[in-house]
């Protein structure tokens, strides 16, 4: 449930679901997101779910903070609104040219490369949110022993398809972008396609994701 609603600037509501980050809290956030999306409230022009927050922004010409807060305070989450969990298996190649930070991670985590990959590939991940750049999924949770901080200096260009790790999350760079996550491999799969306007993102909040290691040969000959 929403613990507190405050204003973020003059044209958005900042809904706080508490300090904890876990699947249950995030599922609540996504349920609110879907309910509000369905209500088509006049003036609401964006709703951004994240781990434990929901930001609702609006057109100040059509509605204001107090009026919208009243609506959200009294909103009833659609009962039985279950979140569809689609399942995906994402192929990942971990050859040297793709695993840009694996050596750095070995040092940071004091773990051998094989152990890092073993732990990563046996995990089923939950998609908490998408964004930062178009379609980028934020996937959790990594095992405790795989949690590392961001790079001290972010890369100016992280290659498209890179799989990154930081803290309790893994992500996929949907196109070349600056970024500071620890890169351990690359997928040939297209995660974001702007020509599919209805569903440009392959992975959406609530989906379940596993990764499968593939050879360089398979990577090069990969066809969707």
């Amino acid at each position: 449930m929403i613990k507190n609603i405050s204003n973020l600037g003059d044209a958005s509501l900042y809904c706080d679901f508490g300090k904890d980050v876990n699947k249950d809290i995030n599922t609540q956030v996504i349920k609110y997101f879907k309910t509000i999306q369905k209500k088509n409230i006049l003036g609401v022009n964006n709703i951004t779910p994240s781990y434990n927050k929901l930001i609702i922004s609006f057109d100040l010409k059509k509605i204001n903070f107090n009026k919208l807060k009243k609506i959200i305070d009294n909103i009833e989450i659609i009962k039985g609104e279950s979140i569809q969990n689609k399942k995906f298996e994402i192929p990942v190649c971990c050859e040297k040219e793709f695993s840009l930070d694996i050596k750095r991670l070995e040092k940071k985590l004091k773990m051998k490369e094989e152990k890092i990959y073993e732990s990563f590939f046996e995990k089923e991940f939950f998609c908490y949110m998408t964004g930062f750049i178009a379609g980028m999924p934020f996937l959790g949770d990594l095992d405790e022993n795989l949690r590392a901080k961001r790079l001290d200096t972010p890369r100016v260009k992280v290659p498209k398809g890179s799989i990154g790790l930081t803290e309790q999350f893994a992500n996929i760079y949907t196109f070349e972008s600056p970024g500071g996550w620890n890169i351990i491999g690359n997928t040939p799969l297209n995660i974001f396609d702007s020509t599919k306007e209805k569903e440009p993102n392959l992975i959406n909040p609530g989906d379940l994701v596993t990764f499968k290691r593939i050879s360089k040969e398979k990577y090069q000959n990969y066809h969707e």
Partner: protein
Amino acid sequence: MNKNYFEILRAGINSTFQDLGRNNLYHIGIPFSGAMDNRNYLLANKLTGNNHNDPVIEFAYQGPHLKYHGDKINIAITGDVSFKIKKSDNLINGECYQSFILENDDELDIISTNKSVYGYLAISGTFDLKFQWSSCSTNTKAKIGSNNGEKLSDNQKINVKEINNNFVNRKLNYVNTKIENIRVIKGTNFNYFSEEGKKIFFKNEFKVSKLSDRMGMRLEGKKIENIVDTNIRSEGLIKGVIQVPADGNPIIMLSDHGTIGGYPKIGVVVSADYDKLVQLTPGSRVKFQEVDLSSAETLFKLYDLETQNLISQI
């Protein structure tokens, strides 16, 4: 074969197609985009008799140099911009907020913006563009929008689909003023900063850095010290949010911003000041001034009334 088109002799520094932008896509990672300076965008369309949400060309600093081929067409430029129109028999010094007629083989040379960043070119008609999510707005980082998500390039052609045959000469008396005090509402992480840091934020001057673009504006000043944590759990962002990363220098999120971020939010620029904020050139000095929510709402009403009033004068 399109018979009416613009030939780009010089594309300019960052010339893109823009309109009102796209809504309801933050949750998949796609920002609003759209014209940075909304008021000047709306005025450009009104001056050429267009719909208020029609595509225009937005340019930054140096604009495009275009050669027009086809039936006569009306154009208007808004902002604070120097431009010339070359006709076969004379050279006209352009004036902003006034429509001009272009005929076959005329050239429009948008030399540069003056003491501002963005200017707008509208035509009395429609560019032949592909829309994505009901908007032409080009986001060059995500490669979304018209022109394959790219800025305009030299030697390319821009086709005109239709001319609205609206050749009324329209004019408006309007002068853009430069903003020095940016009004902000305290952010959700205001208390992450030391008392000294908060004081610096509201009392000291900041300089606009060269590292500013449609995604964000970086500022430089005395370091704003964080006493809680230099990272927060990643969460949504909106236009105008001021984040302060570990180096203590504020970054303001602009129209093409990343939709999720993990730096503490010290404040948010009020909606009424956004158009003027984006026009600040690198090297400009600004101060932040605190306002509360209800004052910000009133300021926006005034801003909107003024915009509507200007539109109705055309």
